[in-house]
């Protein structure tokens, strides 16, 4: 299994705040990794480093080139134009001719069962539909890795399920690597095969999903797990 992402002693600072501290992490092709931890633990910063949106203050990050990976945000940004154009734009920005981009965008919308909404202004879509649209935008680019920053955090249960199903289809269909941050432990169990637990910018646990939920954990991770389960 070849490594797509390799972080060695990565440290990220924003002024006086240490977002990531001495991080060592390797993610191989085809892995489905969940990043868990309390708010402010560094999950989003780690995803941004992997995606090339944030630079380490020190340490070495060897990541898949940005044009071979895609990232989904908690609140996906859609331009004030049709759903189809929003998906096509992602392809066009990566060098696909506009007409070809629209053709592939239409196929991607069908994949997320949004073909009927192709002409609808993307700004008028619901949160769940926007997230599915963002998945279509990522999917259309056939990325080798998909990074997701709490993609279902602000969705209702039905939309959550739909997006989760698409994530499952994405990782199964394209055998792509998937790294996602989530507070939803059920989702982590359903979608991940490896869990990385972060606390104050440090990795405290990096275990296969079964071991994370059943094996012994460092105290803070164990407390977090209990708290999240109670909630």
């Amino acid at each position: 299994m070849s490594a797509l992402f390799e972080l060695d002693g990565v440290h990220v600072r924003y002024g006086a705040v240490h977002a990531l501290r001495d991080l060592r992490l390797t993610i191989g092709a085809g892995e489905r990794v969940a990043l868990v931890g309390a708010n402010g633990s560094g999950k989003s910063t780690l995803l941004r480093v992997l995606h090339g949106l944030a630079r380490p203050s020190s340490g070495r990050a060897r990541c898949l080139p940005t044009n071979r990976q895609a990232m989904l945000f908690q609140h996906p940004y859609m331009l004030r134009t049709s759903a189809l154009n929003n998906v096509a734009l992602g392809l066009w920005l990566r060098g696909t001719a506009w007409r070809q981009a629209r053709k592939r965008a239409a196929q991607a919308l069908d994949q997320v069962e949004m073909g009927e909404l192709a002409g609808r202004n993307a700004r008028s879509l619901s949160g769940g539909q926007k997230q599915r649209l963002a998945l279509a935008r990522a999917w259309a680019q056939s990325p080798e890795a998909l990074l997701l920053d709490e993609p279902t955090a602000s969705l209702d249960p039905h939309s959550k399920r739909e997006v989760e199903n698409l994530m499952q289809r994405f990782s199964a269909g394209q055998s792509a690597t998937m790294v996602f941050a989530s507070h939803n432990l059920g989702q982590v169990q359903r979608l991940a095969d490896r869990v990385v637990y972060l606390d104050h910018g440090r990795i405290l646990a990096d275990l296969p999903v079964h071991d994370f939920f059943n094996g012994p954990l460092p105290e803070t991770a164990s407390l977090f797990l209990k708290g999240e389960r109670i909630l």
Partner: protein
Amino acid sequence: MNTLLESVQTALRLIVSLDPVLLAIVGRSLAVSVTACILACTLGMAAGAWLSVAAFRGKAAVLTLLNTSLALPSVVVGLIVYLLLSHSGPLGFLGWLFSFKAMVLAQTILVLPFVTALVRQAVGDAEADHGEQLRSLGAPASMRGLLLLWDERFALVTIVIAAFGRAISEVGAVMVVGGNIDGYTRVMTTAIALETSKGDLPMAMALGLVLLTVVLALNILGAMVRRWREQRDAGGASILAREAL
């Protein structure tokens, strides 16, 4: 009070009878301000969008200067353009002083910082909120500027309307560089100042009413754009509400 009423009555007569002198002044005013506005908006939108996405040393100083230039008195702009265009000035060879072109240049310089600063604010806010996602899609800085400019087009309409309002209602700059020459560089604001000083209040009032009507029309247009935008957003929300049911 009688003078005011008589002035208003005479002014309305001049407007209704389409007085040729009045029409010529109004037409010239509109031509100067529309041309200046097109130039200032083209340059200002490009500069504002670029300032929103570009990262360079001294950006904070540039923004401070830009914000300071918002408070430039129009008469000072007129003076600077006068010095530039006067025979001994660096642009004296153009022979533009006391011409239509000089007035356009003065109004463009007056409105340019206004457009640039407002566009930078609108696009800068959008860049702060969404720039990272556009970067994630592979958009370089220049493309982000263009995409966000296009995406904020409704806010830009309001900025254009406000810029035109500022251009057409200013008097100091066009007075200094245009010279208020009858039939050549006389515009609404300079004519109002002149006619008032001469005591020809009906003509001044007629021009004042036209100027107010133009500004009122602009405000109505701005309000209509805002309302149309709100209705579009509400339309989207109602579609969502229907789907939820």
